[in-house]
Each structure stands twice: as structure tokens, then as C-alpha cells.
């Protein structure tokens, strides 16, 4: 599973700060850090314990198959909130909670356009703080597709995951008796054969693009793996390595 880029015998003497020995040792503990896109934010940090792929195969960079992600093009969002309504309808989200929101920003100092809409949802992080914090593994990162899932039977309702999440993506659902959050419509749609999430399908302005990051032919792959238009993630400093990318243009 570990990705060893220097096995061809060319040690990293150029960097000067990290010796090749250190780099190999780092890789040995199984952390695969790939990709330099999205401002360094497209990173797959996967523990060596997750042996999903045989060594050497290309999708090794993105260890999930499919590696679901979402690209949100905020310059196209018009705040109609059809995505929010679709999410509520598809996933029975109660009125006191939300799985996705469209936030609104007014910048008085801006010229011409002063308003901006920013959709937010669970980022299905690659290094999820919620998964780390849950005492009983009621929330876990699915090994196949990378979605951060909930096992409602185990949840004790301590809400440490709600506190841990840097994106305010989780809430306690009284009807389920457990924490609820966006699961990329896995339970309601993907597991039943649908190819995309409710929010992405219902957006009239093609703002949300849902896809498989490990497939080079997928639209999200092409949107992210380019250097002309800026691609970023929210709260990169939290270190959660999210799978939801934002861009303009």
C-alpha cells in the first residue's frame, strides 16, 4: 500500500531539508501524501492499514474506489436553495437541523456584485476529526468509497463529533436517536443505484458537481487537476483534508 516514489534509486538530495532517509521512514508508517492540487489541499492521507489497492495500480493515489468528492463553483450559485430543499426531501432532514446549507455573504465594499452564496456540507474528510473522536466508532470512513458514514446503532449521543467537526456538518437527529450528517446521499440514493447526490442533481446552475476523483475521465478530476482557475478547500488549517472543493470560473 505504501507509495514509494524513490525506489528507482534517486534519493531526494535536492531538497536539502528532508533527507531521503527521513522521507522513506515517513512513507514506511503508511501515510501516502499525494497530489499538489487545490493549493496543496488534495491530499490522500491514508493509514497503511487500509489495504484497498494492490501496489502499483494508478488509483493508488486516491485509495477509494470510487473516491467520491464534490466540486462547488461558488461564482455560479444564485442562492435558490433548491439543493437544500432536495436534500431535505431525499433524506428526511428535520426542520431543526440541516445537512447542507447555502450561506449568504454581503460585501459592501465590493464593486458591482456584492452578494455571494456559499453552499456548505459535510466535507467527507480524508482525516476526519469526528471519526478520530468518536469513542465507539459510531462514525467511520467507509473503506470502499471514502464517505464518512454513521452507524446509528452505536451512537451514544455524546456529541463530541459535533464539537470536533470544523465544518458544523453534524447534528443530533432525535428521530434516529443518533448523530446525522450528509452522507453524499449514500443511503437514500447511491446505494440504490443513483449516480449522484440529490443536491447536485437539483441544482439549476450546475454549481455542485459530484463525482469520482479517482477516475481521470470524470468531470471533477478535470476541474480539480488544473492550475489556471483557483481551487480551494474550506478551513485547510484544520488539517482534516476535506473532499469538497470550491472554485470559481
Amino acid at each position, binding site marked *: 500500500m505504501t507509495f514509494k516514489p524513490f525506489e528507482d534509486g534517486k534519493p531526494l538530495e535536492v531538497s536539502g531539508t528532508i533527507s531521503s532517509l527521513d522521507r522513506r521512514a515517513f512513507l514506511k508508517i503508511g501515510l501516502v501524501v499525494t497530489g499538489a492540487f487545490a493549493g496543496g489541499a488534495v491530499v490522500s492521507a491514508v493509514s497503511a492499514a487500509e489495504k484497498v489497492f494492490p501496489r502499483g495500480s494508478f488509483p493508488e493515489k486516491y485509495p477509494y474506489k470510487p473516491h467520491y468528492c464534490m466540486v462547488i463553483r461558488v461564482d455560479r*450559485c*444564485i*442562492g435558490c436553495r*433548491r439543493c437544500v430543499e432536495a436534500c*431535505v426531501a431525499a433524506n428526511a432532514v428535520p426542520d431543526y437541523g440541516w445537512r447542507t446549507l447555502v450561506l*449568504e455573504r454581503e460585501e459592501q465594499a465590493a464593486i*458591482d456584485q456584492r452578494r455571494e452564496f456559499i453552499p456548505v456540507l459535510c466535507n467527507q474528510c480524508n482525516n476526519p476529526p469526528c471519526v478520530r473522536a468518536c469513542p465507539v466508532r459510531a462514525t467511520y470512513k467507509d473503506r470502499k468509497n471514502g464517505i464518512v458514514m454513521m452507524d446509528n446503532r452505536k451512537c451514544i449521543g455524546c456529541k463530541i463529533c459535533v464539537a470536533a467537526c470544523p465544518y458544523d456538518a453534524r447534528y443530533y437527529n432525535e428521530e434516529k436517536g443518533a448523530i446525522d450528517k450528509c452522507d453524499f446521499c449514500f443511503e437514500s440514493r447511491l446505494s440504490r443505484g443513483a449516480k449522484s447526490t440529490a443536491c447536485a442533481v437539483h441544482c*439549476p446552475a450546475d454549481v455542485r458537481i459530484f463525482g469520482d476523483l479517482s477516475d481521470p475521465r470524470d468531470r471533477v478530476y478535470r476541474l480539480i487537476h488544473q492550475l489556471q482557475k483557483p481551487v480551494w478547500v474550506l478551513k485547510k488549517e484544520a488539517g482534516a483534508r476535506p473532499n469538497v472543493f470550491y472554485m470559481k470560473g
Partner: protein
Amino acid sequence: MRKRMLILCTALIITVPLSGAGAADKPPAGILYTQPLKSVLFSHGDHLQKGTSCSTCHSGLFDMEALRAQTRKDFNMAALYKGKYCGACHNGRKAFAADTQCARCHLGTRGRVAAEDAPVYKATVRLGRGGQRVAFSHESHRKKATCRTCHPGLFQPKEGAARIGMADHDRNKFCFGCHSGKVRGVFAWSDCSRCHGKAVPAPKEAIRFGKENRIVTFRHDTHQPKAGCQACHPGLFAFRKGTARIGFPDHMGGKFCFTCHAQKGGAAFYTCNGCHK
């Protein structure tokens, strides 16, 4: 008989077109489109500033009747890109292109429910009657707030529905949640002339303080010319009947009326009968 008919017809011929012309002179200041999705706010004011005239848009692009466009099936962005509706100018040449700066026109919903009750709003809304009336300007507020800021929470989108009394001014209701003096950049309601065009007359009725044999009947008209509203309101007295509790210690302590009616300077209150009749 004929003469009367002639006069009647002349009168009709003159007045009917005038009323029609009157309507045409005042387009609704804002039109909120909620179809095919929520929502886009069109402002006549913004567009008239650009040197356009009525016929720029209303000679084929848009009906005169507000919101007629959104009943059409082709009222969507694809049509705009082809030059229909707004796209006739918003093509990147005459004005910014329709496929840029989306949120400049699109208002969103501010939540899951949009205010669909008043898609067309008037530039000026009259609040109140007589000497105290206020002419509220939608346009001056539109820059700083959106429809949802006031509607439907604070005001029903219906002219004449709000009854705003003096007492509501310091209760943070209606306009006064923002115009309370506590919000930065927003003038306080105590600056009467900002809203009330004419000076607000004081209440004419007598105000009774106290009960039984201690009743004091206060008349504004003997006080206001001398002191002005600000002298007593809201510092000494709230704008609400019945809230002031004046006890005998207050007579000595210089509170309420006795800020002025003190021993030195004003007419002393030792002459009890002056107020307590």
C-alpha cells in the same frame, strides 16, 4: 342636457388618460421574480439611472404588466444568453454579461421560504396620516437590507396594515429595531424630522397622572412650545401613558416633572394646587 353631456364627456376624456398617465409615470420601484426560481430583484431605479427610457425595454422585451415575463416558459438563462429579456443588454457589451456576476441580480431565498407576497413594491410607502405621516422610501433601504429584513416579520407587505403608535417607538417593533440608536450607521428615531416630514404635533388630549385626590392633569400644549419634545422624551418620560410612577420623594429628588419644576429656576411646586387641582 346636451351641455351637461358635453361637460361630462370632456371631463372623462381629460381625467381618464391622466390617471393612466399617472400610472405610467410611476413604475414599481422593484419587481421580485420568483419563477422559474427564487429569486431575482429587478430595480427600475437602477436601470433608469443608466439613461434608459421606458421604450428601451418595453417595446417588445418586457410587457408593461409586472411579472408577466415569468409566466412565459422561455423565461430562463438560456433565453437571456440568446438576447431575450434582460439579455438584450446584458450581453457583455451594453451591460455586464448575463453569465457573469450571477449573485448581482439573484437574491436567493434567505432560507427555505421566500417572500412571494409582494413581488412588486412601491418606491414610497405612506405610513400614517395627517401631521404625523411618514413617507417610507423602499429604495433608500434596499441598498442596505433585503426584503426579508422587514417582510413579513416586521411589516406585512400591505400598505396600511401597520399601526405604529408613539409607544412602539421605544419597543423595538416595526422600524425601531434598527432605528433604535444602538445600530451603527443608522439614525435613531429620536431624530424626529428624519422620518416625519412635518413637525409631529403633541397629543392633544390631557394626560392624567395619579389617582383619586392626587390626580394631575397634564396638557402638552402648555408645555410643548416652551420645551420641545426632546426636553422630556424619552429621557424623563417614556412615550407611553401610564408608565410613570411619580411619588412624593420624586418631588424632592428632581425627577420627572421636577427636573424643571424645581425650587430654583422653574416655577416651584410648593403651590400644590398648581398641578393638583
